[in-house]
């Protein structure tokens, strides 16, 4: 250590500079010392002298590139292209650039040289003894020549240092604005001086940017095209500057802004005065947000220090927005309160997402129509104009402000297409001419952009990527430049790509350098597990029967499950996760690539993987029948003691998945249905029985964990996922909600358990830098809408904690209308805040790392490392944590492996990664959602759909409805823009305008709290009225739009509309068969699969049906016998109402609902009698009737269990009740002793002897509670 402290620098230089302080207007002397050294490595892998550790420059480059400040600033986008590698950035140049590019995102800029994939370095020329002297030449003016000389000096040094083995290109731009006019002789002298000195030629060049691009990148059109469009947009800027200078000179009075009508916007304040005003608090700073549906209404949440975070500043209209674009960090001045105004969106607040349709015309409105031409540049006019746009309803005003400056521009790629008129114009013009064109961004919030391009003809009818360069004061639209083409408009591939670009998702293929790190796996040379892996991994291939359960057709299998029985009677339940961190070493190129991508993005019909397919679909994927590396979590559980977890083991393993199943298949096995062809599993009947018993163990185990979680307050939230069937051209031909089988949540529950155990483990080992996932409690004001709806239905909603909320939602299950309940649940889901990754090292706020939705103290993502990068980090953390105390991890190999895994990530860097991952996660989720929406709209465009919907809020012009099937919230307007009332459609004919006019005066829309009415003044009657939570029929259609995605059109249907009637019929038949799918999903049970193999199964079990009917009847009878009070289920009640009139039907439904989840209510009684004529006869049979019910059917074992949790929750105790424990014992016995049970015709033979005792206890329980459960009879 002592050695390290001794100096290694060679010289010290002190410079003295004077600086003018703008605020205090004083001159300050700054003394700076610089230590010079010669031990700065060149960073090239060619070099033999310097240390190789930090070599990042490519070993076999065509050339190394050194840029000066001008070139770097003006053509930054070119250097950001991934093709450009081997760049030596000078720290002096970078400093200059950072000072000048104050609006640019520094973090992104820094990645130019910190991202190793770019193979570029930051060379510290200022402290390097051979190059520093030119830096501080006081006689030179600052700027281009200055930086040019540095570039030359460094280029010369590199050239000599590498002994001419690599071509070095130095880029120099002279100070003139015209980049092409570099003094040739000036170049020549340097060139000759430098290159002749070594007697070699062509290894050192000093070029300007244009020549460089021509000389080196002519073959790559993407580079040269981007460069060309940048040159053009730059030329424009200089022209404009010249013009401005001229006009300023000619303007004798020198008044700025005297350009009069030509300036549409107020001038932005200069940077230094902005800073001062922000510091003094007279300006607020914040990120400018615009809602997708109201592009003219901007909002800012100021983030000044000490500011109340609740304040929201409203910035309406383009004039007040003053060239701010969504995402920019802007400075805002508040207007006086008399100018404050109301937001149109605010009137619909709470729903927030109206599909208010904004067309191209709307966007143009404020600045492309002639009438705004003569607007003087004042605030008042801005407001007036906005008033025109806005409706004049009396609404609450909001604090309003105007943008006075832009602190940092948000930079991203925008997808756009040409405006219609321009397109027509171009088709007649000469190709290759420079054109100014208007293009329409796909994002509705972005105004049209002016484009200056030579490839106008190539842009016809295409979608392309543009970037916005800036927005001049005297221009109504921002200007931008073309970056690349995406494809023809309306093509589904193009539209999907567009969504990806809009959400900033990287779609480029993996770089060849990162691919070189991949292991080889070919037919001739298949990849095998290296022998040394066996030394320290636990080999579970022959000891644990492992299988995986995934959606059908999935190739990236992350997880597998296993159950094994120990001789001690204990069970080992294992979750095995693909060992991605073995293949992806920390900080390898592959790792960086995966980190940058963050997650796999699944779009309809295609996915963009985080890892190359050889890993994600082959080597990491836990395929059936092959040996794979895994990281496992193995719990030892005690089946005698309610599956209590006795021990847990984490570590690396080798597994061989025996069966690769899919959900429906596993479900069928558990349900003991005959498996259709293609669904069989290998190994014959014995194997089938073994797998079945394994699955049953997993089912009971996960059910128990789930109950426990629910007792702690876990929420059951819904988010229906849509599934599209697509035709050959990828167009959607049908849409369906994804079905959830019980097997889905059984697997999900095990994953949640594994995640939470891993989270606990890594938090214990690395309390200051564990990567966890937290879910903050929702903000209370998110519930306003939900509370209103609840009030309308007479429910109370307790939002004080997650448990209270879960209870309230469960109470709503009792409501008769599943549609309403699903609406409630969906609204609750939307009120939730977003779960996010966090590093425990962060200064966490009060909410800490608690996961609100799952009700877990610690949670993380561990189980999907193939598709999420966070899981890869968590794997590394877990293995590092295990390295400390695991006996298995020993031996030299392991230690080296361990050092590889150590958490070098300092907590600060981890925080950055976490931040990045959250962003990637959000973006990919948004892209997937938008993709689903796109397909849904494409589908609706072809096929209009009539759907059932629920009214969830009411606003002045109409109401918001919720369509549960598509999880959509859409506004329904009862009044058009002219104020005419729109009546619900009676048939499909378009509205006749004349008719509309004729009745316009007689119909009036009346809004009252919680209800909206259409009155006919002529008759003086209310013709229609809609209340909160009313169910209505709406017709969903979509209209095509050229520039944007299709738009949703919603029309209210009158109940007599043929479509509505047809749908009603359809749904009532559905109801006859069963409760709508939503309810099944909610209660965790399956909708019986209507298609394919299941149907066959059904036919074969007609006998079962009859049996079921009998069972139901008997059961109820017994219940009565026990209770002396008659019992009925509310579900039964509702079934009756829905027209399931025959006993048989009811029984069917009962059976499918798995009886157990039905709450029997003591209060409601009478209606049962009419269903069951033979109640009394059943009553006589007494307690022994249940021999065949449910227990011949293995599935029910698990399904009986949800009851318990409800019981517990209502009692508020977390400890299972004694009777519950007893019951579990029986469950355990039967799951374990499956074979014996199958033989038994009467299951009671396997029950413990003290049945009588149990029965009594159950009776007692029921006596104590007002409510009873069916299962207690079952104990008979």
């Amino acid at each position, binding site marked *: 250590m002592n050695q390290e402290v001794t100096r290694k620098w060679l010289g010290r230089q002190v410079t003295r500079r004077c600086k003018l302080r703008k605020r205090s207007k004083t001159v300050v002397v700054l*003394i700076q*010392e610089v*230590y010079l050294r010669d031990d700065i490595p060149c960073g090239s892998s060619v070099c033999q002298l310097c240390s190789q550790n930090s070599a990042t420059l490519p070993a076999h480059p065509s050339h190394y590139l050194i840029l000066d400040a001008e070139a770097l600033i003006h053509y930054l986008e070119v250097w950001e292209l991934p093709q450009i590698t081997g760049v030596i950035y000078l720290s002096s140049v970078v400093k200059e650039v950072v000072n000048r590019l104050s609006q640019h995102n520094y973090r992104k800029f820094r990645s130019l040289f910190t991202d190793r994939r770019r193979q570029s370095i930051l060379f510290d020329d200022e*402290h390097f003894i051979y190059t520093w002297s030119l830096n501080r030449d006081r006689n030179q003016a600052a700027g281009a020549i200055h930086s040019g000389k540095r570039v030359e000096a460094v280029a010369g040094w590199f050239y000599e240092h590498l002994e001419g083995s690599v071509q070095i290109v130095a880029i120099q731009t002279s100070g003139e604005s015209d980049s092409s006019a570099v003094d040739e002789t000036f170049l020549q002298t340097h060139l000759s001086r430098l290159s002749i000195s070594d007697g070699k030629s062509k290894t050192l060049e000093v070029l300007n940017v244009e020549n460089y691009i021509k000389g080196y990148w002519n073959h790559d059109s993407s580079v040269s095209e981007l460069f060309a469009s940048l040159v053009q947009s730059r030329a424009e800027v200089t022209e404009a500057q010249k013009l401005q200078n001229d006009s300023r000179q000619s303007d004798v009075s020198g008044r700025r802004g005297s350009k009069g009508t030509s300036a549409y916007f107020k001038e932005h304040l200069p940077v230094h005065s902005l800073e001062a005003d922000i510091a003094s608090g007279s300006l607020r700073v914040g990120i400018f947000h615009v809602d997708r549906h109201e592009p003219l209404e901007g909002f800012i949440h100021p983030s000044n220090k000490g500011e109340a975070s609740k304040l929201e500043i409203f910035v309406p209209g383009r004039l007040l927005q003053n060239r701010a674009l969504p995402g920019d960090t802007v400075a805002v001045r508040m207007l006086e309160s008399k100018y404050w105004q109301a937001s149109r969106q605010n009137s619909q607040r709470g729903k927030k997402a109206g599909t208010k349709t904004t067309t191209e015309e709307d966007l143009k409105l404020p600045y492309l129509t002639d009438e705004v031409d003569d607007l003087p540049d004042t605030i008042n006019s801005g407001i007036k104009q906005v008033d025109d746009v806005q409706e004049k309803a009396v609404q609450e005003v909001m604090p309003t402000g105007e943008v006075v400056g832009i602190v940092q521009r948000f930079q991203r790629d925008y997808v756009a297409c040409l405006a219609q008129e321009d397109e027509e114009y171009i088709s007649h013009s000469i190709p290759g001419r420079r054109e100014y064109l208007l293009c329409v961004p796909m994002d509705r919030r972005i105004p049209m952009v002016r484009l200056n391009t030579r490839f106008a003809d190539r842009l016809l009818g295409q979608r392309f990527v543009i970037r916005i360069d800036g927005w001049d004061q005297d221009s109504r639209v921002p200007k931008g430049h073309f970056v690349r083409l995406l494809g023809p408009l309306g093509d589904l591939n193009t539209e999907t790509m567009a969504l990806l670009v809009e959400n900033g998702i990287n779609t480029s293929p993996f770089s060849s350098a990162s691919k070189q790190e991949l292991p080889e796996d070919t037919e001739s040379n298949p990849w095998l597990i290296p022998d040394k892996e066996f030394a320290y991994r636990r080999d579970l291939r022959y000891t644990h029967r492992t299988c995986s359960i995934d959606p059908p057709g999935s190739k990236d299998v992350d997880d597998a499950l296993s159950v094994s029985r120990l001789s001690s009677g204990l069970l080992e339940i294992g979750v095995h996760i693909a060992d991605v961190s073995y293949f992806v070493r920390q900080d390898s190129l592959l790792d960086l690539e995966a980190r940058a991508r963050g997650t796999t993005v699944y779009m309809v019909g295609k996915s963009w993987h985080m890892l190359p397919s050889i890993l994600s679909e082959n080597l990491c994927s836990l395929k059936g029948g092959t040996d794979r590396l895994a990281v496992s979590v193995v719990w030892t559980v005690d089946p005698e003691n309610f599956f209590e977890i006795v021990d847990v083991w984490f570590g690396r393993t080798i597994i061989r998945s025996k069966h690769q199943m899919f959900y429906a298949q596993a479900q069928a096995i558990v349900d003991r249905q005959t498996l259709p062809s293609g669904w069989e599993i290998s190994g014959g009947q014995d194997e089938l029985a073994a797998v079945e018993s394994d699955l049953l163990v997993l089912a009971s185990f996960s059910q128990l964990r789930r109950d426990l979680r629910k007792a702690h307050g876990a929420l059951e939230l819904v988010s229906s996922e849509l599934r599209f069937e697509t035709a050959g051209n990828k167009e959607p031909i049908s849409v369906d909600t994804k079905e959830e089988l019980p097997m889905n949540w059984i697997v999900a529950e095990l994953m949640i358990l594994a995640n939470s155990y891993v989270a606990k483990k890594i938090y214990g080992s690395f309390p200051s830098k564990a990567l966890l996932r937290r879910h903050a409690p929702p903000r209370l004001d998110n519930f306003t809408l939900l509370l209103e709806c609840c009030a309308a239905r007479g429910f109370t909603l307790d939002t004080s904690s997650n448990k209270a909320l879960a209870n309230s939602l469960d109470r709503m299950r009792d409501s008769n209308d599943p549609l309403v309940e699903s609406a409630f649940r969906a609204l609750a889901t939307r009120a939730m805040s977003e779960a996010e990754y966090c590093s425990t090292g962060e200064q966490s706020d009060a909410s800490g790392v608690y996961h609100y939705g799952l009700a877990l103290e610690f949670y993380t993502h561990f189980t999907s490392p193939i598709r999420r990068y966070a899981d890869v980090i968590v794997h590394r953390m877990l293995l590092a944590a295990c390295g400390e105390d695991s006996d298995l991890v020993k031996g030299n190999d392991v230690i080296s492996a361990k050092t590889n895994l150590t958490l070098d990530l300092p907590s600060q860097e981890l925080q950055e990664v976490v931040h990045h991952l959250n962003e990637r996660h959000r973006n990919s989720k948004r892209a997937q959602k938008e993709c689903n929406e796109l397909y849904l709209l494409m589908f609706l465009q072809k096929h209009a759909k009539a759907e059932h919907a629920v009214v969830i809020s009411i606003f002045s012009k109409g109401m918001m409805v919720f369509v549960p099937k598509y999880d959509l919230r859409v506004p329904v307007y009862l009044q058009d823009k002219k104020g005419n009332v729109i009546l619900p459609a009676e048939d499909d004919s378009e509205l006749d305008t004349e008719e509309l006019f004729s009745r316009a005066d007689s119909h009036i829309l009346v809004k009252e709290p919680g209800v909206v009415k259409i009155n006919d003044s002529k008759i003086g009657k209310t013709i229609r009225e809609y209340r909160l939570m009313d169910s209505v029929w709406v017709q969903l259609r979509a209209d095509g739009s050229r520039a944007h995605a299709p738009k949703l059109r919603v029309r209210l249907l009158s109940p007599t509309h043929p479509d509505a009637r047809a749908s009603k019929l359809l749904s009532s038949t559905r109801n006859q068969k069963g409760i709508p799918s939503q309810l099944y999903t909610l209660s965790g049970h399956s909708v019986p699969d209507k298609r394919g193999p299941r149907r066959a199964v059904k036919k074969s079990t007609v006998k079962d049906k009859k049996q079921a009917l009998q069972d139901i009847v008997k059961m109820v009878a017994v219940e009565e016998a026990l209770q002396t009070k008659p019992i009925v289920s509310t579900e039964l009640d509702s079934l009756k109402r829905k027209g399931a009139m025959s006993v048989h039907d009811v029984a069917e439904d009962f059976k499918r609902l798995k009886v157990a989840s039905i709450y029997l209510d003591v209060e409601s009684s009478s209606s049962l009698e009419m269903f069951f004529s033979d109640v009394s006869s059943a009553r006589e049979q007494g307690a022994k009737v249940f021999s065949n019910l449910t227990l011949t059917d293995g599935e029910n074992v698990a399904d009986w269990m949800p009851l318990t949790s409800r019981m517990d929750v209502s009692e508020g105790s977390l400890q299972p009740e004694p009777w519950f424990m007893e019951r579990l014992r029986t469950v355990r016995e039967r799951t374990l002793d499956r074979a014996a049970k199958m033989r038994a015709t009467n299951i009671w033979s396997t029950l413990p002897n003290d049945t009588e005792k149990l029965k009594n206890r159950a009776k007692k329980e029921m006596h104590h509670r007002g409510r009873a459960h069916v299962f207690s009879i079952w104990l008979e």
Partner: protein
Amino acid sequence: MDFISPEGLRLDGRRPFELRQLHAEIGVLDNADGSATFEMGNTKVIAVVYGPREVQNRSQQQLDHALVRCEYSMATFSTGDRRRRGKGDRRGTELSLVIRQTMEAAILTNLLPRSQIDIFVQVLQADGGTRACCINAAALALADAGIPMRDLVASCSAGYLNSTPLLDLNYLEDSGGGPDLTVALFSKLDKVTLLQMDAKVPLDVFEKVMNLASEGAKAVTQFLREILMENTKKLAFAKEPLKV
């Protein structure tokens, strides 16, 4: 802000574990009993020692050991903006106290009862690390005055920025918001006499920074020893011609 470049260099070109340039002179003032200037990079401090001499204020006289007094001040020109700095401000009083206590611990005060030792420390140029610099200068001045000491005191500061421990912070790094830790050592006795830090840091980080600072202090001791040796040689040389 980046205090460390990707290459691992600090803003002024040092590596994290490197000290700034050290420079010291002994006997800069003739009318004092002992004096020295000490520079760490751009930080320059002059220390002047009077004594042991008669106690000025009789009431303060100690019968069994010497009275040590210390006065710290900053020259008006020591920082970029010219500002009069009084002696009595909080920071000044605190620093005087710190220096006095450190020096009191070093001086064998019991050998000099009923006497007084005055240490005046003035910062001529401030660029971070003044505390450490003052202690080093005072130690040299005391040695120049020939006052008996247990061991040579040397001090150095260290900080923690961008997740890296940094030795000997300059002003820019000092104002970077990270912790700043000053250590003074008796390097032969291997004992710490001063440890100051006003920030919260995790224990493992603290340990790293503390180790680094004490390594720095040891390097400073080495330097002080060399300077003193040189000075002694010079004095010996000055004496010798007279003898001959």
